[in-house]
């Protein structure tokens, strides 16, 4: 069989986590996990090339770490039984991973020495003699060959899904600024008149809030659910 080997810096989230903890010379405890949470998140953020298959695992560990860290910061935070179990699992997994990683290093050292025991082919030198199975015919052979064929896994081709480009908040803000630069004043309904779906409207709304926060624009709404008027803030 052909196996493919992939050598990334970190084989998986546990590998990364263990290295972070060991770099800080910490033991594997909940508290040390809380300590390295930021570094862990930073690593995921800066490594855009984490393979998609692994990304889910990296993120799953990240969510547990955030849970752990939030408890370290807010001791009064009460966790559900499930969350408690998840945290306990992670520390135990990591401790088990550490053991196997160390054992693997020892095995690697042993293998490097090249002290191999050789065996030899079984029954070498024994003369063969014709001993066919009873009652076998050509149709049996066909049946067995067909059975082999049917067990070969067929690689299913998944339908390709077109990934929709989503407008980012930043792009929306730039868009909005351009509109306002030309018009000075506009309405939210005007901005979203060409919106293709809800997400687009939501992004526009968030962009508007962000610009209010950054004091770029000023908004007015007379009554609940009425249209929102956007104005460029004049410099006083």
């Amino acid at each position, binding site marked *: 069989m052909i196996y493919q080997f992939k050598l990334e810096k970190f084989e998986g989230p546990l590998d990364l986590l263990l290295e972070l903890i060991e770099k800080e010379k910490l033991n594997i405890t909940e508290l040390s996990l809380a300590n390295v949470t930021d570094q862990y998140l930073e690593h995921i953020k800066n490594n855009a090339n984490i393979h998609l298959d692994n990304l889910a695992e990296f993120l799953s560990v990240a969510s547990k770490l955030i849970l752990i860290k939030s408890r370290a910061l807010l001791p009064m935070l009460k966790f559900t039984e499930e969350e408690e179990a998840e945290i306990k699992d992670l520390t135990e997994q990591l401790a088990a991973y550490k053991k196997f990683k160390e054992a693997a290093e020892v095995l690697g050292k042993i293998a490097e020495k090249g002290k191999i025991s050789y065996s030899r082919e079984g029954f070498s030198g024994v003369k063969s003699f*014709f*001993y066919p*199975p009873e009652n*076998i015919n*050509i149709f049996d052979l066909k049946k067995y*060959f067909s059975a082999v064929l049917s067990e*070969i896994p067929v690689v299913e081709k998944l339908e390709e899904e077109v990934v929709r480009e989503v407008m980012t908040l930043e792009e929306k803000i730039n868009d909005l600024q351009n509109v306002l630069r030309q018009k000075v004043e506009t309405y939210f309904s005007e901005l979203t008149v060409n919106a293709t779906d809800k997400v687009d409207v939501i992004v526009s709304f968030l962009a508007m809030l962000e610009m209010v926060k950054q004091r770029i624009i000023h908004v007015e709404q007379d009554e609940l659910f009425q249209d929102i008027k956007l104005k460029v803030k004049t410099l006083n």
Partner: protein
Amino acid sequence: MKFMEIEKIKSAIESILFMSGEAVEISRIMKVIEVSKEEIENAIIMLQNEYVARKSGLAILRKEDAVQMATSPENATLLNQLVKSEIQENLSKSALEVLAIVAYRGPITRVEIEAIRGVNCSFTLRSLLMRSLVERIGNPKDSRGYLYKISFDFLKKLGVDSVSKLPDFENLSKDERIDSVIGN
């Protein structure tokens, strides 16, 4: 020539003879362990005597300038029984499958058979070889490997004179699922 303790020489000779499995010239042993011919001859005689003294299941045979490790003649009956049971056992489902692959796709390498079935087949192939149901020939593309094909005796037993007369041979032997795993 190197200096080597006699115990070390005996140990080395035992390993060499075990791994070779066939008769080894004393001159070849000399090349490997670099001690004098007398020392090697001496060590062989000591080994032979030790095997006899402790009624070992192994023996070291000597013919002219070659030595070979073999089983003790005392156990011959017992070993014949072992070989017989190995050969006469009913063919397992996996053995029948390997046989069918060799019939429809031979000549084929062991690696390819293993790719098709997804499991190691060396024991199964050995047992089919011992029963003369398949035979192996040298692989023109790889001097270290072999190609396996159905034996003519077995074809005759099946009542056909060529694999192409197996049912649906044209279709089955070209099935693309096989090519997808052995990468042709």
